[in-house]
């Protein structure tokens, strides 16, 4: 193999594909990256057999070929170079990296041993989602995913496509976040899957800054996200392949409150601020009390710690409902919900200390966050 690439593109590609490299595995080769040069493209690929990443960029290939190298040493070296482009060449079992000032030889592994990363075939059906929308939606719900080993079916983000509406849902059984995205173009009539939390996180960090559309190839056991920007050849062509979580997602719609006893429209940043202040005195249980008061036209947030002291604050807002109602919550849950909302104002749907409370943008938007109170 012999090729010339832009140093920065290679660096970016390495740091992205490195995410899929297996940290420790029975198969040592999985701790490496496969470089393959063919046509006018250099492809970097890595996998830990749960998730796989392929990164393709333009390169001047003089001799096609493949090589497997440890990613860390290569990316660390690239960071120290100052050239615009670098030459890569293989000799027997070594990779020689040539720049104006450095000549580096890196030991390699046999490319024949590297796993074959499954890829969508020509003609496989797919649909497209707007990248910023998908990434924004995923980042809003991904933090809520349950960590329990005992319930694998909620350890991922639930994708539920119905008509032109795609719902991204996550829950850890104490709270639940749902983001609705409208999909344009041709889509399958109905489709659901449970995407592992790790893949969701990787997707948002890899594609977070990108524009355009991502193609989604779905099969019952795996999914491929393909990003290709044909207008801008400087952009890489990325494929993220992931296994899906097997299982049936709970029928979460049944959990969504049908109605609220009280509603409060509040300034989001101020509300978050009040909750953070109260959190200082929330103690180990993380418990803060929220009281929605119709007469006072506002919400009181308070907390009390036996050792530290107490805090109470009032935030005026638009209240609908009768009298007042109060409930205690884990402040982290409330704060995380509020942080996922970008709008200026939020609406708090309140059911007192028994039913779930809801946070949503105001005026109503495409995001819903449900949280259960702490039992008094």
């Amino acid at each position: 193999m012999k090729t010339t690439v832009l140093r920065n593109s290679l660096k970016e590609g390495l740091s992205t594909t490195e995410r899929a490299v297996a940290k420790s595995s029975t198969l040592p080769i999985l701790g490496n990256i496969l470089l393959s040069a063919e046509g006018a493209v250099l492809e970097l690929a890595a996998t830990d057999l749960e998730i796989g990443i392929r990164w393709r960029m333009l390169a001047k290939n003089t001799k096609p070929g493949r090589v497997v190298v440890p990613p860390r040493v290569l990316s660390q070296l690239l960071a120290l170079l100052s050239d615009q482009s670098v030459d890569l060449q293989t000799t027997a079992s070594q990779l020689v990296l040539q720049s104006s000032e450095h000549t580096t030889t890196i030991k390699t592994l046999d490319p024949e041993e590297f796993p074959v990363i499954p890829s969508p075939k020509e003609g496989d059906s797919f649909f497209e989602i707007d990248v910023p929308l998908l990434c924004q939606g995923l980042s809003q719900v991904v933090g809520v995913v349950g960590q329990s080993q005992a319930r694998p079916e909620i350890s991922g983000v639930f994708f539920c496509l119905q008509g032109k509406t795609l719902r991204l849902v996550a829950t850890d059984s104490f709270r639940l976040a749902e983001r609705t995205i409208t999909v344009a173009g041709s889509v399958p009539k109905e489709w659901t899957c449970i995407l592992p939390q790790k893949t969701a996180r990787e997707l948002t960090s890899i594609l977070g800054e990108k524009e355009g559309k991502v193609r989604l190839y779905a099969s019952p056991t795996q999914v491929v996200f393909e990003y290709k920007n044909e207008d801008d050849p400087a952009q890489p062509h990325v494929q993220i392949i992931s296994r899906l979580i097997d299982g049936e997602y709970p029928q979460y719609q049944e959990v969504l409150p049908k109605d609220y006893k009280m509603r409060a429209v509040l300034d989001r940043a101020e509300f978050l601020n009040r909750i953070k202040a109260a959190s200082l005195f929330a103690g180990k249980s993380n418990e803060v009390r929220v009281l929605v008061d119709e007469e006072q036209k506002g919400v009181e947030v308070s907390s009390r710690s036996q050792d530290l002291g107490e805090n109470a604050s009032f935030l005026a807002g638009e209240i609908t409902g009768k009298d007042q109602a109060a409930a205690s919550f884990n402040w982290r849950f409330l704060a995380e919900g509020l942080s996922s909302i970008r709008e200026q104002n939020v609406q708090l749907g309140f059911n007192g200390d028994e039913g779930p409370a809801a946070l949503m943008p105001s005026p109503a938007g495409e995001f819903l966050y449900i949280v259960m109170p702490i039992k008094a």
Partner: protein
Amino acid sequence: MTKEELWQATLAQLQFHISPANFATWLKNTFILSRKDGGIVVSVPNNFSKEWLENKYNKMIFKTLRELDPELKGVTYTVEKASARPQERSFSPIREKEDPQMELQELRVDKTTRLNPRYTFDNFVVGPFNELAHAAAWAIAKNPASVYNPLFVYGGVGLGKTHLLQALGNHVLLEGIRSRIKYVSSEQFTAGVVTAIRNRTVEEFRAQYREIDVLIIDDVQFFAGKDKTQEELFHTFNTLYENGGQIVFSSDRPPKAIPAIEERLKSRFEGGMIADIGFPDYETRLAILKSKLQEKNVSVEDAVTEYIAAHIQRNIRELEGVITKLAAFCLLNNRSPGMADTKTLLRGVIQSPNKAVSVKKIVQVVAEFYDLKEKDLVAASRKKEIVRPRQIAMYLLREELKGSYPFIGNRFGGKDHTTAIYACEKINKDLQESEMLVEEIGLIRQRIYSG
């Protein structure tokens, strides 16, 4: 050679040609899915393994298999969804009350069985009032479809029927005695029938219910008057029963007392074991109270628990409500409630039942119980099916409200006071002879007070 043996023999050979790391990575969790007409389908856990085996090891695997089975023509690989294979059920142990953070309840309910793992035999308090029902449920849980089939449990509101039924289901599931279990409320079953009829999917609906090992239907009294649902239930029952499936029903009254249920279904209900759950006695109430208080980590004086047990007699759910109140009191005031506090706290709960009972209420409940209209009871009809309920209503007015005979007579369309006297005496006499009547009146009383 069976396909398992064949694959084992193949793996035994392959291990000499593949490095241990590769062997462990690529051939883990593989097995022969099917073997037909010289073609073998190998199931692999993921697409990576599939690609690898197809591209790298296919020749080797084919050669090895061919040596063992000369008939072989080809090998293909497929990714199986794990659920297609029997899989160990993972249940998290239930963290009861340790963590005050509440969960979104419905998520806990198992989607296929519809069982809520919160209900177990371990947290079911047994007393003389529910001993029989508990023993029957326990025997069934140990050994479904062999001892009591069907089991019919009945008893009043909030006495633990649902808990017992769910515990039975959970036990069977957790111990792995049977795997196909379904818990449905009568409402869900009815809704299922209606949807099936509307969508013309009756066949699928039937199939879904007839492939079950243990079917639990809660609150069957609501099937009253729903003929098509009853018919479906009847057929489901027969099929399940013939296939050796266990069936469990619950209701708020004995089968005989459920109005508007077809005779053939009624006789099915009565065909197995009928167990009732009565009112808990004082000692059991005390035991339940203490165990619940312990769960909630509330400590109160003995006098307080005794006071509560003595005053809340008819409903365990109500008892739980009181405990929640006590717990809230502790939390708010940072001390355990004394006798005086308890009396104030319970004022609403304890007094309300007596207030709620009125002549109107009794007449209404009796009418409803016998599926009559209130005005029938009051009218001058002497039809047998009306006379009896009317006598029972008179008896209850006398017993519960201490109404005078002329007053009672007057309430029922201006009848003479002697009619009322006769009715009360008649019922009193029958009560000594008929267990059935005792039960019926017990149930009516319970509805008057719980309702």
